[in-house]
């Protein structure tokens, strides 16, 4: 098992700026070095692993740092909460794992003192319960004894009358299923005569356990939704509970309501509003999902902005994670004069792979400058979407997609043992719902040099971050000067992040883009910027970054596209922004509009090659094809699946936006039947969708000039970069890439 794991607070920094590093190290000490990453591929058949030592950062004391996963709402304690004796807690809930043991709904609880009260889903499938703690000895639990059904809405309430020592529980299903026996109204006498006082926070969706170096640590995490949680300062009768269920608080209860949280407000925020005059506002922790359909969602509106009163739910998960919140172990100020590029803090606490971790980041050029004509756009949004992806461990179809056995690395084995490190947007939560948020404020062990991914095709088996080092390696080997800029720089700075460059190169798989990033790239092209799209499945999903808190992105897997999970109906709109999520194609911006080609098919066993098309013989594009023979197969070699055309592949399509003047220079052929047409093309499913039969299973190499002297060149294959180094970088994939890059990097405008 790995002895050292780490993350950084930034994914890019310019010279003079500082990055903080947080390290979990089980050894007494570790050493940190700044290294330049060149090639992360460990395959002996490739160019070999390459990194360059830049400088020693230091030697540091190791300490164990742990992750506390699971989301909740935290409300700081207040006099009105501390003084509660008799009370009522109530809410609507939609439990997703009601049989998974105790899960707290509303807790005003101190675990250390066993004091306070909590409305919970009771252990042993005994329905809802009220836990009472006097602060002296054992807590007392009253339950309905009626098991809850998963994925059904309930109104639940619990009241306690200190004078009569009686508890009332209400468990009211919003839909009555014949024979379900899940409704209950229970009244019971209890022994507890007084609720123990404490100063711990009120927690919704979990209960407070302890404070760990500034982090609130909770237990009893709820899987499922809570809507309209409310607290009253006396024991309401059932009719009063009904009156307080939802909507504005009636005058008759004005003196009784202590808190009434509206989860439908502040959806884009981490803030949670209490609409009562007490203003007991809170904050979400570990990013539970907002903008979720509530108990009263009618289906008349699909967007939370249009009917916030029907989107009063937050979906909590026991494995949600945003900021791991570790203590800083060391900081690195990027040295002045350090060339822009891909770098990492290399951490070692002993010998061997188990005692080593890397935290990669981009060193930007000095702010406001470009130090090269070429920019490599590091697709960090896509790295985040795939962060700590567990499909190889969890999903039976992985071996079908790959057409072979799944391979696991030591990082995968560690991540499986430490699920608290959080999942990717390709995984499901422990309750089966899709993971729509992904954070980089945690160790991302898939975003590492030397890492191999099961999905990366036979051969080097690289995917995303490490596959992109094949492009970095080629730039270095060919002697190009280049700067590196990340997706987040493009998102936050817009076109100014790239507009000083003659050409922008993408990674092998730049799949995820925010509106800000899409607009910036569009503007760059319109101004005459040139784009080399050295991959496939690009500009596919629309994402959003949170406006208040850094390092977390959102994707809603809506009504189309290759989806590892599907967003529930009515939950297609980003909570971070209110934008309609899903495919860019379903937002009126298919990738063909920006790249000339867009996602068409995928398969993950072996790659294939391209054949020249008639357009490639036109004199206008002779400069691209220079050095490539008439009948030559292009890329019938390579480290990713053995060919340059493979894994995910894109095609030109005029109706989806490929410009009318685009040249289709070459197309791939002869893919295996593991390759299948993407599902957004399947309005009617039909036989013959595999690579041996279907014309849509192909990658098109496309070039077209754009206005103001710009141009776009798209290779349309994730595997392309794995062929660049073949035969000492002397091959037709490398040649074509060089032909285009030399021309695109020049100051001479492209001819339209």
């Amino acid at each position, binding site marked *: 098992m790995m002895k050292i794991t780490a993350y950084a607070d930034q994914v890019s920094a310019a010279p003079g700026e500082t990055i903080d590093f947080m390290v979990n190290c089980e050894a007494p000490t570790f050493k940190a070095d700044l290294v330049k990453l060149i090639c992360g591929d460990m395959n002996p058949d490739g160019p070999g692993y390459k990194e360059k030592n830049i400088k020693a950062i230091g030697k540091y004391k190791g300490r164990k740092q742990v992750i506390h996963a699971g989301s909740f709402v935290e409300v700081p304690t207040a006099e009105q909460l501390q003084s509660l004796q008799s009370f009522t807690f109530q809410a609507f809930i939609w439990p997703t794992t009601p049989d998974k043991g105790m899960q707290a709904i509303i807790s005003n609880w101190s675990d250390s003192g066993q004091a306070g009260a909590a409305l919970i889903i009771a252990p042993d499938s005994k329905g809802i319960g009220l836990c009472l703690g006097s602060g002296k000895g054992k807590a007392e639990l009253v339950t309905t004894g009626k098991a809850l059904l998963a994925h059904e809405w309930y109104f639940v309430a619990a009241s306690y009358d200190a004078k009569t020592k009686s508890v009332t529980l209400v468990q009211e299903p919003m839909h009555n299923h014949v024979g379900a026996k899940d409704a209950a109204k229970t009244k019971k006498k209890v022994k507890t005569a007084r609720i123990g006082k404490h100063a711990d926070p009120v927690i919704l969706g979990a209960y407070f356990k302890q404070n760990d170096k500034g982090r609130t640590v909770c237990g009893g995490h709820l899987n499922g939704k809570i809507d309209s949680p409310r607290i009253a300062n006396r024991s309401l009768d059932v009719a009063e509970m009904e009156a307080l269920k939802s909507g504005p608080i009636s005058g008759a209860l004005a003196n009784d309501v202590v808190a009434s949280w509206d989860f439908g407000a502040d959806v884009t925020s981490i803030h949670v509003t209490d609409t009562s005059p007490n203003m007991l506002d809170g904050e979400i922790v570990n990013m539970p999902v907002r903008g979720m359909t509530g108990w009263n969602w009618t289906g008349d509106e699909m967007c939370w902005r249009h009917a916030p009163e029907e989107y009063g739910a937050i979906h909590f998960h026991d494995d949600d994670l945003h900021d791991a919140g570790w203590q800083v172990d060391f900081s690195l100020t990027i040295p002045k004069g350090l060339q822009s590029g891909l770098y990492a803090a290399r951490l070692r606490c002993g010998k061997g792979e188990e005692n080593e971790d890397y935290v990669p980041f981009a060193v930007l050029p000095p702010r406001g400058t470009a130090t090269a004509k070429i920019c490599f756009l590091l697709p960090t949004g896509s790295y985040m979407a795939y962060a700590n992806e567990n499909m190889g461990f969890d999903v039976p179809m992985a*071996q*079908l997609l790959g057409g072979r056995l799944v*391979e*696991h690395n030591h990082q995968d084995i560690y991540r499986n*043992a430490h699920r608290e490190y959080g999942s990717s947007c390709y995984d499901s939560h422990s309750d089966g719902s899709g993971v729509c948020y992904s954070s980089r404020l945690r160790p991302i062990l898939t975003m590492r040099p030397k890492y191999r991914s099961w999905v990366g095709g*036979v051969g080097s088996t690289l995917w995303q971050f490490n596959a992109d080092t094949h492009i970095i390696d080629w730039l270095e080997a060919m002697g190009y000067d280049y700067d590196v800029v990340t997706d987040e720089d493009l998102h936050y700075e817009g076109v100014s992040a790239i507009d000083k460059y003659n050409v922008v190169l993408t990674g092998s798989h730049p799949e995820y883009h925010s509106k800000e990033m899409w607009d910036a790239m569009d503007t760059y092209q319109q101004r005459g910027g040139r784009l080399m799209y050295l991959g496939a499945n690009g500009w596919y999903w629309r994402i959003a970054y949170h406006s208040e808190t850094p390092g977390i992105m959102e994707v809603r897997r809506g009504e189309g596209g290759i989806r590892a999970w599907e967003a529930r109906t009515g939950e297609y709109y980003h909570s971070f922004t209110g934008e309609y999520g899903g495919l860019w194609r379903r937002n009126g911006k298919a990738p063909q509009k920006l790249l000339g080609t867009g996602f068409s098919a995928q398969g993950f066993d*072996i790659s294939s090659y391209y054949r020249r098309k008639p357009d490639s013989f036109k004199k206008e594009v002779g400069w691209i094809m220079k050095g490539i023979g008439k009948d030559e197969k292009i890329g019938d070699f390579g480290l990713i699946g053995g060919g340059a055309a493979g894994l995910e592949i894109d095609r030109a399509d005029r109706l989806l936006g490929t410009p009318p003047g685009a040249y289709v220079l070459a197309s791939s052929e002869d893919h*295996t*039947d593991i390759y299948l047409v993407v599902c957004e093309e399947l309005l009617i499913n039909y036989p013959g969708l595999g690579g041996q039969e279907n014309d849509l299973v192909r990658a098109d190499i496309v070039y077209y000039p754009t206005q103001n002297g710009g141009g776009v060149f798209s290779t349309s294959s994730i595997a392309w970069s794995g062929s660049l180094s073949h035969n000492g970088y002397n091959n037709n994939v490398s040649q074509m890439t060089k032909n285009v890059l030399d021309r695109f990097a020049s100051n001479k405008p492209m001819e339209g």
Partner: protein
Amino acid sequence: MPDIYEVEDNYRPKPDDRRLIEEFRKNPIGHHSPDLQRLLNRLRSGPMADKYCLVVIKPSREWQLAKTSGVPGKPLKMLSQRFTRMDDAEWYVFRQRWKALTGETLR
């Protein structure tokens, strides 16, 4: 424990399908006839509990056979077999799955 579905399903190899064994042995990863692809879909689609997988010992050079637990967080079960060619690992697992499906031991 076999790592393929034990439930009744709509495809089981017929006597004539034994020819697919040799086709697979010659080329475990890559282009396959439709009949072999159908058989492989059957063999590879089992649930994650006790499902064969590989652990990388030396990148692109050596792998150790293992089985997933099927329970997120529960460790792999490491098996003793090691392979220096991916094709050999595929052939070994094919034989185990063929036996689980048909009862026949392949040499």
